[in-house]
């Protein structure tokens, strides 16, 4: 993709979105993240914060210190050669208990995909996921892509309360509910790993660009890890980068 296909869209006078396309795919995401890294290093005057999303980078700015036109001029030369950038990724393994007590929708997902519950688990835990973005809730990671066999639209009737730690799938994405919240994704397990801690900076364990795998654990292991997490003795650690 050439720089000319990139659109700079105003979000009023305090943000502009640098948009690389309308679809969700890894190549687009890599360009968003590469531009994020470039802009974070460039430290443009008046830029308040940067937010990478699936297909665009949101640049929040202070209109007293800069302007849409000034930022557009500064960003244009940074759009070339983004596809050549390969940021080093952190790799995480997140333990998940797929026990029926937590996997509220596992049976339904199995029925709708024509797989057995064991096959759903095998498929979900068999892939490596890319963290596209964090949004919806504090620390909530949009991770993809789930194996095509598991891709289902969101639930028609969203739940009013999804427990924290729930691992869910919808469309081509999988996610972990970092806080208890209403939600419309299919819940297929629960992780004992804390992915959000307001006392830490950054408060979210995962960041866009990270790679994630899920490791099935049984109920006793889940309970043991929950107890260790509560005692502050269990935190995920990344490999690489």
């Amino acid at each position, binding site marked *: 993709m050439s720089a000319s296909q990139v659109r700079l869209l*105003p979000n*009023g006078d305090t943000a502009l979105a640098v948009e690389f396309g309308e679809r969700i795919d890894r190549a687009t995401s890599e360009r968003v993240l590469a531009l994020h890294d470039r802009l974070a290093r460039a430290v443009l005057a008046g830029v308040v914060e940067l937010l990478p999303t699936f297909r665009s980078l949101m640049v929040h700015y202070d209109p007293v210190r800069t302007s849409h036109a000034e930022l557009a001029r500064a960003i244009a030369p940074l759009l070339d050669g983004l596809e050549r950038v390969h940021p080093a990724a952190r790799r995480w393994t997140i333990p998940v208990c797929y026990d029926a007590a937590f996997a509220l929708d596992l049976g339904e997902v199995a029925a709708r995909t024509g797989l057995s519950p064991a096959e759903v688990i095998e498929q979900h835990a068999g892939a490596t996921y890319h963290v596209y973005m964090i949004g919806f*809730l504090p620390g909530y990671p949009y991770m993809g892509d789930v194996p095509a066999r598991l891709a289902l639209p969101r639930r028609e009737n969203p739940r009013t309360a999804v427990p924290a730690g729930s691992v869910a799938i919808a469309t081509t994405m999988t996610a972990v509910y970092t806080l208890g919240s209403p939600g419309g994704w299919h819940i297929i397990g629960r992780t004992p790993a804390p992915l959000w801690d307001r006392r830490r900076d950054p408060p979210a364990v995962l960041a866009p660009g990270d790679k994630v795998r899920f490791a099935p654990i049984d109920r006793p292991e889940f309970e043991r890890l929950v107890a260790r997490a509560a005692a502050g003795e269990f935190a995920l650690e990344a490999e690489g980068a």
Partner: protein
Amino acid sequence: MTSALLVVASGSIAMLQDLGRIGQQRYGVPVSGALDPVSLRIANAVAGNPDGTAALEMFYRGPTLEVAAESVRVASIGAALEVSSGGANRRAPAGQSLRLARGDRLSVGASDPSLVAYLAVEGGFALAGDLGSLATFPRAGLGGIGGRPLKKGDLLPLAAPRAPERPERRAPKWDLAPPTRVRVVFGPQDDYFTERARQTLVESEYTVSRQSDRMGMRLEGPVLEHAKGFNIASDGTAPGSIQVPGNGLPIVLLADRPTTGGYPKIATVASADVPALGRLRPGVTIRFEAVGVEEAEAARRELETQLAALRDRFEAVRRAR
């Protein structure tokens, strides 16, 4: 002994807010902060604080607070204050600072005509906050006192044990009336709407719905027609983003807006007009007016110039004892 304000009655809903939690949006953390940052900044200026000091944001009926400190100076914007000290009562209009002594009871009146009122205390509150901000965001338990609105019995610790003696001041006249016209910049997804929808947005009257909250102002009025569906791959939101879900009714995103969203955004309210949105009560009507991004930026710079000049224009309040 710590210096504090004791919450005797919590009022309708009151919580601490500042100018927001900046720098955490990429971790999904909403900015939060004052719904009406202009009123917050004026309240802080009158109380003698920097602009971003956390203050109480109060909806409808204000709280009653008892002074558990040697003295404290307070200033409110958007609500009158009433003080009872040992049987004697005094009142201060909004926009004027007031020095209180130990044992005084401060009753904050109803927010009027604005939806929100602010109470700043000189020196601010001695609280740690979360992720660099005291802004209360109850959904994630961030900021304020325990990440929630005030409750009866709460102690709000004060950073300053006493307020220095000095003439009280009054903010110069500032128009805080809820606006009827709100400027918007089209985009980022106005191409997801029909030409008629774009016209409808700026030619119709919309009414603020009762379903509005600190996350978003829901509007009732003519439906905005989508041209290519109402789902987009989620992207970033801004303060004042006007997103339009499937029912075609616009929602203006406010202080507690989620950092990202999956509905197309037809336009964005100019940042100079976003604070005024926080003053709008359910039931009032507004009209949108399209401006270009340069015009919106200029309006914001003008607002900042006026706010910067405010501190040179304080009026002294004559002692009336």
